[in-house]
C-alpha cells in the first residue's frame, strides 16, 4: 500500500484552513449515530473524547487506569509552548514552527508542525477557560518562561506540575460528559485486540483487569491515544504500566509503525542506585541553567566530591561546547554523560553518574536564591537519595523519557488502517527525530482538542458503513486470539519471572539501542532479543489465572509486545544509516563527535509494515521535503 | 422549604447545626458563669439566692430555658447520629491506628467527652435545678451548693467533669468556626483567643467554685 500523507497543497500557512474547509462535515443531527471508541484517556485521549462528545458524537472511552486522572501525562513538569508572543520578544507561529522542525533535526513533516504551531495558542485559551491555574504575573496576566534552550519565552507553566494541571483540565471536561452520560467510560480495561471488518477498524477487544473477562466493543472509528513505548527499556521515566500493547497489536493488524528508533533520552535524571530499582525519576532540565556538570579527571576516584580540587575536575560540557556549555540540547548532554561513564570516569556507587554541582551558584547568589528557584527539585533529590544537594553535588544520569516514533498517521491523524486514528505520543507525527521541551503537552492537546474533531468527521461522512456489531465473526476471532494468548502464557509454567525477561530486554536495549548505536551492537541486540523471546516462550512463569485481577498476567501480555517491539526498534535503528536527533549512530558523526545527518539518503519517514510473526517488516518511505526550513547542521559549539 | 430540608440533611448542613447549637450552649455558659460568680460574695449567699430566685421565676428566662433545652437536645441528637453514621463508613477497622500523630485527641474523643458531660449534666440538674424549680418548699440555692460541695467525691466529680468540658470545647469551639467557614488566616488568632477563654478560663472559673466551698472559704 502506498503511503498517502494527504498533506494539503498551497502555502503552508493556509494549508490547515484550506484543508478544514475541504473536509466533509457530518450533519449535526447525524453525529450521535456515529460511535467512536477512544482508547487511552491521557491528555490526547481525554481531550479528544470530550471534544468529540461536545460535537455530539457517541463516544466510549477506555483506560487501564481506575481513572483518567492517573494517566502519565500528569507527570510532565516543565510546561507547554504556544507562540502567543505575550512576552513581546518576537515570537510567532512561524518561529515555533521553525524551532520545532530544526529541533527535530529535520525529520518531521513541515505541514504537521506548522499546524501544531498554529493551533497551540488556542490550547492555552481553552485550558484557561477550563480553570487551569497557569502561573501569572502580579498584573494578573499569564507568565511565560523560556524553556529547553528556546530563545523566546513561550512556555506556559503551572509551577513544576504543568502536565498535572492540563490533564486535570482535560479530565474535568471528560468528567462533565461522563456525568451527563454523553461519554461512556470504562475504567481498568486494557485494549488487547483491534477488530477489523472489511479492512476498516470497527472495534476493539479489551481485558477487564478486575474480572479478567474479555469484552467486545464495536464502533465506526477507533482512536488510539495510548502513549509512548519507552518502557521497552524497562527503566525509564515512564509510568510502570505505560505500554505498547495497543499500538503494537494494531501494527500487527496492519497499521504501519514509523521511526521507532527515535528515542529521547533526558539528561537530568536521578541515577540507578540498585537492582531493586523500578523506574527512573526525572528532574527538570532547568537545573542545568545554574548547575555545572563535571567528573573527576582521574579514573575510579573514590574521594568525595568536595575533596576533589578544582584542577582535578573535568567540566566536560563547558570544555567541549564553550558557547552553550551546560545548556547543550538534551541529546548531546545525555550522550556525553554516557560516554564519560563508559570511559570509567563515572561517579557514585554504581559509577554511572556525573556530578551536577551548584556550589558556584550558591556562592554567587546565596542558598536562598537557589532554594526559591529549585527548592522542590532539591527536596525531591534529597528524599530519593538521602543526600543534601545544597552541600554535595547532585549525581545525575540520562534516562529514556519520550519516544518520538509511533504509528504512522496521515495529515488527518489516520493510520494506514482506515478508521483507526492515532493521537499524542502514540503517533509518530510532529517531533521528528527529537522533541523539544514543552512540546509534548502541546502536541497531545492539539491532536485531541483541535485536529481530530475536524478530521474524523471527514472519514465518517465519506464512508459507507456496513452494519456491524459485537456479534460479528471478526469480534469472535479477535476475542479468541486474545484468550488464546493469555492461556498460552499461563500454560508455560517455566522458571523465570516476567520481570526477569523485561529487565533483560531493557538491559539489551539500553546497551545497544540507547544513546549511542552502531551496526554491531544493533545486530547483536536483534539476535539477543530474538533469543530472549524464544526463552520467554519456553521458560516464563506467569502466576495467576484467566479470571480475576492478576498483575502478572497483565505484565506478561505487555512484555510479549515489548519483546517484539524491542527487536523492531533495533531494526529501524540499524536501517537508518545516519545520526539525527535522538538516534545517534556512532559510525555517522562529525569530527567533533556530533550527529551527522544524511539528508540525501534518509530524509524520509520510515514506515514499517508488519511482515508476519518472526519475519522481517517491510519498509515504506514517506519522503520529507523541506520547503520552508532548510536543513542545516546543528551546532552548539 | 424543601431546599432547607435538603440542606439540613446534608453533612455540611448538620454540621452547621451542630456548631450553631454548640456555640449557643457556650453562650449559656457565660451567663451561668457570670451569675455564679455571686457565690464568691461573702454575704452568706443573699445575692446569689436572689439571683437564683430571679432566674427561676422570670418569664423571659423561662422561655430561653426552653430554647436552651431544645438546643441541647439537637446538639446531642446530632452528635449521636454523626457518631453512628461515621462508624458505618468504615465497617472493617484498621489494625493499627495513627492516634495522635495526625490529629489531636480532643478532636477524636468529642463524642466520648460529650457523653460523659451528658451524665454530668443529669446529675448536676438533679442536684440543683430540680430542687430549685420543682420543690414545693422554699430552697436556699446557696446552701444547696454549700452542702453539695462539702462532699469530696462530689467535688472531685465536678472537677473531672469541668476538665472534660474544657477538653470538649478545646476542639468544639474552633471547630464550629471551621464549619461556618470562618476559620481562615484572618480570624484564626481571634478564634483561638476567645476559644481559650471558653476551653480554659471558664472551666477553670467553674472549678474554683467546688474548691471554694470544699475548702470552706465561704
Amino acid at each position: 500500500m502506498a503511503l498517502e500523507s494527504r498533506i494539503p497543497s498551497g502555502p503552508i500557512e493556509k494549508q490547515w484552513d484550506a484543508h478544514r474547509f475541504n473536509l466533509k462535515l457530518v450533519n449535526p443531527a447525524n453525529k450521535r449515530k456515529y460511535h467512536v471508541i477512544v482508547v487511552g484517556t491521557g491528555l490526547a485521549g481525554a481531550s479528544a473524547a470530550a471534544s468529540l462528545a461536545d460535537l455530539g458524537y457517541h463516544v466510549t472511552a477506555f483506560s487501564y487506569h481506575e481513572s483518567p486522572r492517573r494517566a502519565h501525562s500528569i507527570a510532565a513538569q516543565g510546561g507547554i509552548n504556544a507562540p502567543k508572543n505575550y512576552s513581546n520578544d518576537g515570537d510567532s507561529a512561524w518561529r515555533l514552527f521553525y524551532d520545532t522542525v530544526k529541533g527535530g533535526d529535520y525529520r518531521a513533516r513541515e505541514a504537521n508542525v506548522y499546524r501544531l504551531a498554529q493551533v497551540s495558542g488556542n490550547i492555552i485559551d481553552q485550558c484557561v477557560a477550563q480553570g487551569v491555574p497557569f502561573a501569572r504575573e502580579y498584573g494578573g496576566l499569564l507568565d511565560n518562561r523560556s524553556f529547553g534552550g528556546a530563545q523566546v519565552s513561550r512556555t506556559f507553566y503551572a509551577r513544576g506540575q504543568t502536565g498535572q494541571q492540563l490533564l486535570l483540565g482535560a479530565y474535568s471536561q471528560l468528567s462533565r460528559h461522563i456525568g451527563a452520560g454523553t461519554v461512556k467510560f470504562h475504567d481498568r480495561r486494557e485494549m488487547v485486540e483491534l477488530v477489523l471488518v472489511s479492512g476498516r477498524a470497527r472495534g476493539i477487544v479489551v481485558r477487564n483487569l478486575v474480572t479478567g473477562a474479555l469484552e467486545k466493543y464495536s464502533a465506526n472509528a477507533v482512536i488510539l491515544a495510548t502513549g509512548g513505548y519507552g518502557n521497552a527499556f524497562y527503566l525509564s521515566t515512564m509510568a510502570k504500566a505505560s505500554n505498547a500493547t495497543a499500538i503494537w497489536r494494531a501494527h500487527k493488524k496492519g497499521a504501519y509503525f514509523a521511526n521507532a528508533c527515535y528515542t529521547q533520552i533526558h539528561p537530568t535524571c536521578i541515577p540507578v542506585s540498585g537492582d531493586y530499582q523500578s523506574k527512573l525519576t526525572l528532574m527538570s532540565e532547568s537545573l542545568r541553567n545554574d548547575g555545572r556538570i563535571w567528573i573527576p579527571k582521574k579514573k575510579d576516584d573514590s574521594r568525595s566530591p568536595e575533596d576533589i580540587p578544582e584542577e582535578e575536575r573535568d567540566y566536560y560540557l563547558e570544555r567541549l561546547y564553550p558557547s552553550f556549555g551546560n545548556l547543550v540540547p538534551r541529546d548531546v548532554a545525555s550522550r556525553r554523560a554516557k560516554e564519560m561513564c563508559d570511559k570509567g570516569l563515572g561517579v557514585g556507587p554504581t559509577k554511572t553518574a556525573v556530578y551536577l554541582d551548584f556550589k558556584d551558584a550558591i556562592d554567587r547568589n546565596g542558598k536562598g536564591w537557589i532554594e526559591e528557584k529549585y527548592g522542590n527539585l532539591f527536596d525531591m533529590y534529597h528524599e530519593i537519595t538521602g543526600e543534601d544537594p545544597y552541600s554535595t553535588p547532585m549525581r545525575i544520569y540520562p534516562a529514556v523519557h519520550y519516544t518520538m516514533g509511533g504509528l504512522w498517521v496521515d495529515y488527518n491523524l489516520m493510520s494506514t488502517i482506515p478508521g483507526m486514528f492515532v493521537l499524542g505520543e502514540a503517533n509518530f507525527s510532529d517531533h521528528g527525530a527529537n522533541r523539544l521541551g514543552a512540546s509534548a503537552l502541546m502536541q497531545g492537546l492539539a491532536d485531541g482538542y483541535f485536529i481530530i474533531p475536524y478530521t474524523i468527521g471527514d472519514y465518517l461522512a465519506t464512508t459507507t458503513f456496513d452494519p456491524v456489531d459485537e456479534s460479528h465473526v471478526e469480534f469472535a476471532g479477535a476475542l479468541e486470539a486474545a484468550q488464546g494468548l493469555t492461556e498460552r502464557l499461563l500454560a508455560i509454567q517455566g522458571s523465570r519471572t516476567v520481570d526477569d525477561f523485561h529487565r533483560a530486554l531493557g538491559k539489551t536495549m539500553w546497551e545497544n539501542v540507547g544513546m549511542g548505536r552502531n551496526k554491531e551492537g544493533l545486530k547483536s541486540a536483534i539476535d539477543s532479543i530474538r533469543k530472549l523471546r524464544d526463552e520467554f516462550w519456553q521458560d516464563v512463569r506467569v502466576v495467576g489465572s484467566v479470571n480475576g485481577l492478576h498483575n502478572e498476567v497483565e505484565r506478561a501480555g505487555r512484555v510479549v509486545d515489548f519483546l517484539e517491539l524491542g527487536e523492531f526498534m533495533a531494526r529501524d535503528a540499524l536501517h537508518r544509516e545516519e545520526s539525527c536527533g535522538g538516534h545517534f549512530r556512532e559510525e555517522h558523526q562529525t569530527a567533533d563527535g556530533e550527529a551527522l545527518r544524511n539528508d540525501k539518503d534518509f530524509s524520509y519517514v520510515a514506515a514499517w509494515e508488519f511482515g508476519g510473526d518472526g519475519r522481517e517488516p517491510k519498509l515504506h518511505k514517506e519522503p520529507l521535503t523541506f520547503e520552508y526550513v532548510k536543513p542545516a547542521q546543528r551546532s552548539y559549539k | 422549604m424543601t431546599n432547607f430540608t435538603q440542606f439540613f440533611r446534608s453533612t455540611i448542613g448538620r454540621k452547621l447545626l451542630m456548631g450553631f447549637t454548640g456555640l449557643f450552649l457556650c453562650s449559656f455558659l457565660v451567663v451561668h458563669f457570670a451569675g455564679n460568680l455571686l457565690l464568691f460574695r461573702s454575704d452568706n449567699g443573699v445575692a446569689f439566692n436572689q439571683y437564683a430566685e430571679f432566674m427561676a421565676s422570670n418569664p423571659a428566662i423561662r422561655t430561653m430555658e426552653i430554647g436552651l433545652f431544645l438546643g441541647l437536645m439537637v446538639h446531642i441528637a446530632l452528635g449521636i447520629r454523626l457518631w453512628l453514621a461515621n462508624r458505618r463508613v468504615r465497617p472493617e477497622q484498621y489494625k493499627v491506628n495513627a492516634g495522635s500523630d495526625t490529629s489531636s485527641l480532643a478532636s477524636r474523643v468529642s463524642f466520648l467527652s460529650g457523653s460523659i458531660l451528658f451524665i454530668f449534666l443529669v446529675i448536676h440538674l438533679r442536684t440543683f435545678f430540680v430542687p430549685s424549680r420543682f420543690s414545693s418548699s422554699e430552697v436556699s440555692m446557696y446552701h444547696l451548693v454549700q452542702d453539695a460541695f462539702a462532699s469530696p467525691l462530689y467535688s472531685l466529680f465536678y472537677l473531672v467533669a469541668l476538665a472534660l468540658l474544657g477538653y470538649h470545647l478545646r476542639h468544639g469551639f474552633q471547630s464550629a468556626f471551621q464549619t461556618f467557614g470562618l476559620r481562615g488566616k484572618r480570624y484564626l488568632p481571634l478564634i483561638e483567643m476567645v476559644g481559650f477563654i471558653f476551653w480554659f478560663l471558664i472551666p477553670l472559673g467553674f472549678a474554683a467554685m467546688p474548691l471554694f466551698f470544699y475548702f470552706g472559704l465561704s
Partner: protein
Amino acid sequence: MNLTLEVWRQENSTTPGGFVTYTVRDISPDASFLEMLDVLNDDLVRKGEEPVAFDHDCREGICGSCGIMIDGRAHGPQKGVATCELRMRCFNDGDRIVVEPFRAKPFPVIRDLIVDRTSFDRIIQSGGFVSVKTGGAPDANAIPIAKNAVDEAFDAATCIGCGACVAACKNGSASLFVAAKVSHLALLPQGQAERDTRVVSMVAKMDLEGFGSCSNTYACEAECPKEISVSNIARMNREYLRFNLITQK
C-alpha cells in the same frame, strides 16, 4: 535491612480477607516502599504464589494511584509524600510493619491493597468542572487573575485524588478532596458561573456516595501527600452556606 510485614490479603471484593506475615531481606534503605513490595512480590512469584496486588503507576508522587496504610498512617510516617516516594530509610532494620488498604465503605477493596476509588471520579463528574466546550474560549489573557488568587487555586488544584484524606479520617470523610476542587474553581473567575451549583452538587454526591461527615480532626491535612490545607474545607463550607442561606432564590 530485614523486615517483617503483616500484609492484608484479600482475593476479591466479595471474599473476606486477612493478614499474612512475610519477611523481606536485604532491602536497601534507598529503595522506595513500593520497591520493597516489588522485592516481596518477586520472591512470591518465584515461589509460584500470587503477588501482593497494589495500585501504583508513575512512582513519582503525582498520579495518585498508590495509597497504602502503613502502620496506621496513610502513605506511611513521612509527611508530604505518597507511598511511592516513601523511602525505606524511614524504617529501622528488624521493624514489623502493618500494611493495609485504604479503608472506607466508598472505597471497596478490589484485591489485597487495591481499592476502588471511582467514587471520587463520580464526585468530579457531578460538578467538578467548568462547562466549556472545545472552541470558542476567549483569549487566555482576556481576564486578568490576581497572582495570589491563582496561586491559592493552584495549591488546591494540586490534589492527586489518592484518597489518603478519606483513609486517614476517622469518619471516612471526603471533605478535603471535594473542598480542594470546590476551592480551586471558586477562586478563579472562570469558575464563577457555576459556583453555586457546583458546590451543591458535589456535596450532595459526596454524601450520596456514603462518605462520612467531617468533624474537623484535620487528620486529612496531616496525611495529604500534597499538604492541601483544611482552610479549603472552610471555604467549601462557606460556599455551601452562602448558597443555601443567602443567595439561593
